[in-house]
């Protein structure tokens, strides 16, 4: 008997939940009809200015669920030159290329933040990062949507984050806040082997320590730049780090490594655990066949 009691309680709770869901389910046909008929009437509570957003419907709804809204699509771009002759053979880090890359990202993020402030956004989410490293210049383009709390007050320094609105919502619910885009890049030379070493290794299966060391050096320096930029912003850590690495197309003896992610800081007193609900789907659930109510 004692074993049956919790099962009954769970079943009762599930039934009550189902009944509550049924009671609040929305007649989507009636809503659609009302929406279509509304076109003949004046706009309902229009915003003071047009809003643009590149968020998906789901992302917009998630933002609304935590009391935030999209304000405007914003852009940042920067082209920074790389001095001539830096890609020729040498040793160590190619500091001019690393500096150009880091400066281009900083400048593009600054433009993005300025556009966000201009429309009274509190930050930019879902930032799409596009970086092209060419022989003589680095091009960086950032695109995202400025967001703010509904009827929120202005905020001094907006954050820039490449997290999706979904991830931003999760982070927000857990008590954390994005601070900015942390970025680090490093380019290093793969040192030449001597003629003798090259000849000796030509028929051997051996580690090319020059390349291993160059990759190591580039990774470490790139990660260090990224972490330094996060610490400078006052962040406690970086989430969703992405990396891109490999030899340069136009200079195969030079190895590039870039790393970026969103710098975050705990805003709540302590981390809030979200306690996800475990779901065991009993269907193939690969298609959404019917328009279902969200409530």
């Amino acid at each position, binding site marked *: 008997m004692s074993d049956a009691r919790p099962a009954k309680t769970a079943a009762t709770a599930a039934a009550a939940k189902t009944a509550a869901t049924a009671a609040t389910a929305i007649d989507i*046909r009636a809503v659609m009809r009302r929406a*279509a008929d509304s*076109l003949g009437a004046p706009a309902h509570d229009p915003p003071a200015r*047009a809003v643009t957003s590149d968020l998906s419907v789901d992302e917009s709804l998630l933002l609304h669920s935590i009391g935030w809204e999209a304000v405007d699509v914003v852009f940042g771009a920067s082209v920074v*030159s790389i001095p001539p002759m830096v890609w020729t053979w040498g040793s160590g880090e190619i500091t*001019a290329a690393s500096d150009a890359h880091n400066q281009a990202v900083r400048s593009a993020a600054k433009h993005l933040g300025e556009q966000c402030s201009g429309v009274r956004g509190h930050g930019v989410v879902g930032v799409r990062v596009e970086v092209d490293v060419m022989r003589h210049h680095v091009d960086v383009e950032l695109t995202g949507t400025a967001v703010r709390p509904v009827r929120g007050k202005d905020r001094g320094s907006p954050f820039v984050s490449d997290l999706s609105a979904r991830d931003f919502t999760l982070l927000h619910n857990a008590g954390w806040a994005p601070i900015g885009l942390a970025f680090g890049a490093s380019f290093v030379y793969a040192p030449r082997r001597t003629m003798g070493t090259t000849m000796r290794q030509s028929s051997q299966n051996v580690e090319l320590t020059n390349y291993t060391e160059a990759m190591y050096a580039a990774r470490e320096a790139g990660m260090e730049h990224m972490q330094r930029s996060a610490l400078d912003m006052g962040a406690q850590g970086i989430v969703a780090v992405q990396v891109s690495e490999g030899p340069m197309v136009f200079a195969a003896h030079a190895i590039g490594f870039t790393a970026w992610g969103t710098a975050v800081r705990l805003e709540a007193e302590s981390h809030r655990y979200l306690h*996800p609900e475990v779901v065991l*789907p009993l269907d193939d659930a690969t298609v959404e*066949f019917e*328009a279902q109510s969200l409530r």
Partner: protein
Amino acid sequence: MTAPPSPDDGPPDGGGTGPDGDLPEAAGRRLGSGSFSSGLTVPDFAACLQMGLRPVGLVQGFCVMQWGWYGAGSPYMRGMTPFSFGGGAPRGVYSESYSCPHGGFMYSNEHRIWGQNYQQPWVESAWAQGFGSAYTRMVEEARAVGAHGVIGVVDSTRLLADMNVTEFHILGTAVVVEGAAAPPGGEPWTTYLAGQRLAKLVEAGYMPISVIAALSSVRVWAYCITEMLMEGTTLSFGGGYMPVSEVEQLSRAHIAARSLAREHVRGQLGNDTLQGAVIVANTQSLAQGDEVIECALRGTRVRRFKDFDPLPPARPTVRLS
């Protein structure tokens, strides 16, 4: 109020030959056949019926435009005059001039003593004409079948052969909203969304008004500093190479192109919202130091029809499978 026709009612006005207007005869026959076609996926089609949207036909519009502005002998090869400060651009058109800091002609005839970023409104308006004509033709088909709206809109542009010719193509599924009044002025609403995504949007309190798209075009004529920085020929007066520097002219051109596209879209939005914006930027090099940056921005214009009513906070789940 005009009740929208049903496929069961037989062919719409225009008799057995299809709808009125200047639609191609074949389109008239297809739309007037009494059956419907739809570009929706099966799940979207089912969701559409669930919402009380009845598909009445696949509607589409085309427009082929010639791009003659970049060709040899084009009157627009170098835009405005360098001698009027601000570029001499028409009022409200973006333009910035850059002057050589090296003392003008003292180097050579090839030295670029001035440069300019300038908006190309003639390109933008031609693009808007191409997109607008294709869109209008699609909506004309939707009106002809008595639709309230067009959902699941897909648009594309492609170059035809090697002729500086671009084709604009736009299509979607015309639908009737069961039991709803005819749209104002008989003008069907349009949206890129369909299926569950459209249902979510409507339930959240937004009604689609129309798809919106705009293109911005900014031409960059590099001046000496920009050219040197981009080509890696930067010798300073001291004899060394110039250090890492921002290429101000290009950075500003990139931001201007994107901002102009956004402003073009804003101009069509009124006080409404652009949902699901898609931004595609493209840089084309026409010659050394001569670039065009184009940015296309498209999305669905939506309008709130009920109070702000946020959903309850989402419950995180872990899925066992």
